[in-house]
């Protein structure tokens, strides 16, 4: 990868992060943000307590959470699209998002707070892992996992999770219902250093492992048989990549809710501008996913200030039209 696309992506990410730290109900100029960050590291820049608290305790963990979630979802989306050789795949189709949702909603139903504590992320994470294992078992035919069978199993599991989630919602009282609904819309409002530390190891482990699959995913563009002829252990690649993606997605979905479209849209944008090669696609998707997620969350916080929108609504508002555009474009390509 030449350095230039990486530099451009880094610049976008940095700009989104700076904006996230300085914009909000109270505006903090970028210079003060930098001073507050340095002061947080132990240097004395004589930043007042209030500014320091806003930047270091409120906005910084939230920004990092938004970056982690968006980067992880885009990374997983790019990997799964490559694995399924299908541009419309995203973590949702594997049942992973559905499993995490069911886990988290179950926890809220039984009294976990939607805004703090470790129970919710752990429950979501457990749900995601259970879903990934169940899909793997369902989809396996004679020790192999055909992609069509994997997709169908994922869709079936997603539907099952959704139905069970529906049952819980139906049985909820008003307070539970509000918590569940808020979580389902996707939000980074529950971000805190504690939660960040809870999910970061899983997400970072997954994010560091996924780029190693780039070579195999490149070969898979030619087809599964062809990738095998090129010496790629295709079945192992599929199993590992799905597992690693589930780990990361499960972790981030459990704290942020199912933030939609980032995993679908970002890999596409990168493919449109930088080509389909995964060595470039995977790191760039992570950077742009993080940037989009941070920017969307900033919008969510300032659009209706002092209240805030769930970030899932903002990403959906950006993502849904783009999705429609993709389908139109695909239709035209198929018709041509």
């Amino acid at each position: 990868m030449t350095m230039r696309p990486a530099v451009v992506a880094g610049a976008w990410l940095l700009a989104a992060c700076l904006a996230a730290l300085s914009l909000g109900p109270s505006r903090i100029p970028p210079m003060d943000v930098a001073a507050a960050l340095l002061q947080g590291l132990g240097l004395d820049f004589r930043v007042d307590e209030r500014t320091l608290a806003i930047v270091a305790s409120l906005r910084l963990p939230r920004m990092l959470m938004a970056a982690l979630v968006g980067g992880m979802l885009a990374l997983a989306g790019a990997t799964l699209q490559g694995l399924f050789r299908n541009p419309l795949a995203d973590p949702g189709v594997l049942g992973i998002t559905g499993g995490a949702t069911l886990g988290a909603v179950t926890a809220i139903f039984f009294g976990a707070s939607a805004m703090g504590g470790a129970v919710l992320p752990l429950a979501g994470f457990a749900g995601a892992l259970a879903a990934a294992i169940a899909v793997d078992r369902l989809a396996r035919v004679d020790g192999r996992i055909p992609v069509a069978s994997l997709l169908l199993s994922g869709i079936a599991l997603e539907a099952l999770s959704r139905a069970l989630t529906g049952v819980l919602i139906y049985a909820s009282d008003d307070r539970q219902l509000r918590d569940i609904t808020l979580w389902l819309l996707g939000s980074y409002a529950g971000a805190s250093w504690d939660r960040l530390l809870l999910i970061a190891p899983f997400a970072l482990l997954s994010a560091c492992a996924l780029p190693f699959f780039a070579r195999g995913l490149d070969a898979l563009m030619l087809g599964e048989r062809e990738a095998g002829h090129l010496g790629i252990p295709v079945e192992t690649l599929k199993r590992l990549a799905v597992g690693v993606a589930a780990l990361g997605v499960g972790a981030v979905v459990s704290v942020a809710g199912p933030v939609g479209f980032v995993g679908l849209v970002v890999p596409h944008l990168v493919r449109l501008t930088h080509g389909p090669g995964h060595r470039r696609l995977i790191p760039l998707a992570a950077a742009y996913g993080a940037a989009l997620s941070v920017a969307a969350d900033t919008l969510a916080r300032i659009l209706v200030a002092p209240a805030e929108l769930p970030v899932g609504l903002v990403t959906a508002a950006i993502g849904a039209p783009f999705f429609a555009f993709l389908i139109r474009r695909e239709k035209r390509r198929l018709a041509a």
Partner: protein
Amino acid sequence: MIRATDIVVRRAGRNLVDGVSLVLGEGEFLGLLGPNGAGKSTLLRVLAGEFPPEGGKVEIDGADLKAWPRADLARRRAVLPQHAAVAFDIDGRAIVELGRLPHEGRSTRAQDAQAVADALDACDAAPLASRGYAALSGGEQQRIQLARALAQIGGTPKPLLLLDEPTSSLDLSHQHAVLSLAKRVAAQGGAVLAVLHDLFSASLHCRRVAVLERGRLVAQGTPEEALTPDLVRRVFGVDSRWIDLPGGQRALATYPMAA
């Protein structure tokens, strides 16, 4: 170079390949012939190591195919499958470059670039390299895929090339060009096995042919030995006659059976 012994492939209680033994030596270009459903592609997939056969074994250089490390095998032999659909918008050159994947870390950038350029030239595909694969015609896609396979074995001593109907979408001049290319690869110390349908070009270009019928090997040898009018009539359901071509070459012409 490659030896298959008593290969049996069973699917749904039927033997798709039924006790076939084949040897393909250095410098040979073997045409694998037979009507639809005779088991040609299945046999080729077994030789390529895509799945283990229910019976028999495949050896390359005397070592069981199962014992070959994936990566070593990928540098030694390339496969051109029948229908190749490619995911995502990708141009011809990028596809050919993927053929160099098994050589990563072992060949220099310059060697890779040379192998890709040579392969594109050999397939008359250089003008297609910068075009999107999806926008190419079937024959053009086939030439790009063949170039990809050639790039994979570029620079490899004693390469093995397995081609499944490499000429099925090609125009006439490219059909002959591709088969001449296969002959060249064989002449330079490689071994080529190609599944072919056209008895005329097979009889003209192949050093040896093997004929499959319902999973069994029914004839093997030089084209003139193997493709007798009797056998061609029985296996392919057409009449045939050897004809002389300019330059002293001979080829098999076929025509519908007399009623």
